[in-house]
């Protein structure tokens, strides 16, 4: 691998966003293609970050810092990538379900997904089934992610999945769920595609779901 991409990965790991931005421009000047820089530099770098995060060596804010650095590089590549259509990993609608106002977990998932290159449409908290349906439809989302902290509100996840069905969208969008009281058994029972136990797992799960589409 070229020296510039190795250095880019190091800067990405350290969260040095202006260095990553500069390196991206330099790599283009050296004649590398945008998809090459994206795949072998930025995404490969984030894979190392992801590996160390799963191993417990990196913390969430450090991953977010690296993600910010990746975005700095991505912004440089975006106009070039748009031509080849490789800019986004997929579109994900997220929200905390109706009746539930807890959002730190959902926000974390959103930030981590964004860091991994997904486009996020965050509907906030207390999101009704109708609002989820509307957003999935308008954005042509690949995945919808629902969060709940309370055993009393997690049933809204079921109502939302039913609303997606009624609107004829259920086979067009994958559904992932998460939150403290949620389990994979519950996810299965309500007809969701996947359960993700934490923000790191949510990224892997989203990748799998997009690949399944």
């Amino acid at each position, binding site marked *: 691998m070229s020296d510039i991409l190795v250095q880019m990965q190091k800067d990405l790991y350290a969260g040095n966003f202006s260095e990553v931005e500069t390196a991206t421009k330099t790599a283009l000047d050296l004649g590398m293609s945008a998809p090459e820089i994206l795949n072998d530099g930025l995404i490969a770098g984030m894979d190392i970050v992801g590996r160390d995060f799963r191993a417990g060596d990196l913390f*969430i*804010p450090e991953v977010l*810092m690296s993600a*910010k650095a990746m975005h700095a590089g991505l912004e440089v590549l975006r106009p070039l990538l748009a031509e080849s259509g490789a800019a986004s990993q997929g579109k994900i609608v997220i929200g905390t379900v109706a009746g539930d106002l807890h959002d*730190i977990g959902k*926000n974390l998932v959103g*930030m981590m997904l964004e860091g991994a290159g997904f486009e996020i449409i965050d509907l906030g908290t207390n999101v009704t089934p109708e609002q989820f349906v509307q957003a999935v439809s308008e954005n042509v989302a690949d995945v919808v992610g629902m969060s709940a902290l309370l055993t009393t509100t997690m049933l809204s996840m079921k109502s939302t999945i039913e609303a997606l069905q009624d609107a004829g969208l259920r086979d067009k969008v994958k559904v992932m769920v998460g939150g403290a009281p949620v389990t*994979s058994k519950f996810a299965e029972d309500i007809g969701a595609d996947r359960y993700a*136990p934490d923000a790191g797992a949510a990224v892997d799960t989203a990748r799998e779901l997009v690949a399944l589409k």
Partner: protein
Amino acid sequence: MTSKTLKPYLKYLSDSHIEEIHDGSLDLLENTGIMVDHQEGLEFLEKHGAKVDFQTKRARIPRQLVRRALETVPDRFTLAARNPEKDCPLIPGGRPYSRNGGGADFTIDLETGEFRPLLHADVKDYYKLMDALDGISFIAPVFGQDMPVLGRDILMLREAFGHTDKHIHLRAFTGESLKLMFEMAVIVAGGKKELKERPIVSLLEAPISPLKFLDVTVDALWLCGEYGIPLDVCVMPIAGGTGPMTMAGNIQLLNTEFLAGVVISQLANPGAPLQYAPRPMAMDMRTGFSLAGSVELGIMATAGAQMAHFYKVPVSLHGPWSDSMTHDGQSILERMYMNMMAALAGANVLVGAGMMQQSLVISHEQLVIDSEINHIAFRSVEGFEVNAERLAREVIDRVGPGGNFVADPHTYKFLRGERFEPTLQYRNSREAWEETGSKTMVDRAKEKALAILEEHQPNPLPEDIRKELDEFVPKALKSLEK
């Protein structure tokens, strides 16, 4: 303004209680006196002004003698390590250090979970494990029951020197073997003067409660003074047995015994490093056993620490300690409060890692868990920094109502260092827990112990020192046979 938070000292005794106990001890030493089973010791005390009855071996020590002895006892010293990075400086108000409970004879087998005698092969493993665990600052001996009784203490020290570069706490069976062990320390330290400057070993000696000093204790006090070896004056009356039933009475007695130790040590070797080691015990009135994990021991030890602070001497307390038969919930519960109370009492050393059941049993799992329990205690007394940047008013303003701090640069800046990161406490999801085998903390401790024993390489002795020691030890053992 920038400053560290207060030391969160736990206190039971008021200033007037402390004065009353101190005065009571002076009174007891002067009127009741101590029994000294050591002819030279009695003569020594008489020469310095004590009233001695050689028939009953009783020495009554006038209060001015105690006051004089207290004037020279140092308020700080360092338990030096072969590797200076692992030194343990005992400083008033300083951070606590820790060691394992010394003298175990039994173990819980790491592979089978079976209770069995501790053997020579286990000793090597235990030293290796404790060398690797960073929540255990220095190491006390464990004894292999298949080793010869005569010179077992010397062989234990030889194994310790080979398996750790941390400070080593000794146990001596006789005055003769103690002297031989000090000579071994001289070899490793590179000379008698070097050992005095950087004592890489220390000792514990305990008078017999109530108020009795054996010959070996007097020998140890003097020999430690001569070599500059730090000594724990371990005073451990058993409430209701060898001490009064009341907590106050136990403190009164152990404080008196400590002061007697100070007199014997300091009048012979002014400035000799001593540590106050109040180890109040309690007799279980159902079985007659001596308890280790009773909450009152923590309360009494805290009062003992207050007396140590009053005399301005470093203090060593029972930390992780338990009556339990194995590394179970009872063990972890008892050692957690014992250790926390001791740390909050301002102990310089937390003693007991690994030890269970009347100080007879040690286990690998318990040592690994105690390394963690010690870290929690270290973290608890450390407090935190208070200054404008850390109070984060600007950050709170920047984030604003309803925002979050996860991706804020302030979070990134202080991400590492504010918190202790545990290695044994499970904090992930149930899914992940089930996927990895639904392991309990004890399972994880066992895995960690096995991994350390597999991978850890202790820092070996320099070749010339190793040779010299290996020539010295057989001669030393032979000299004991005479």
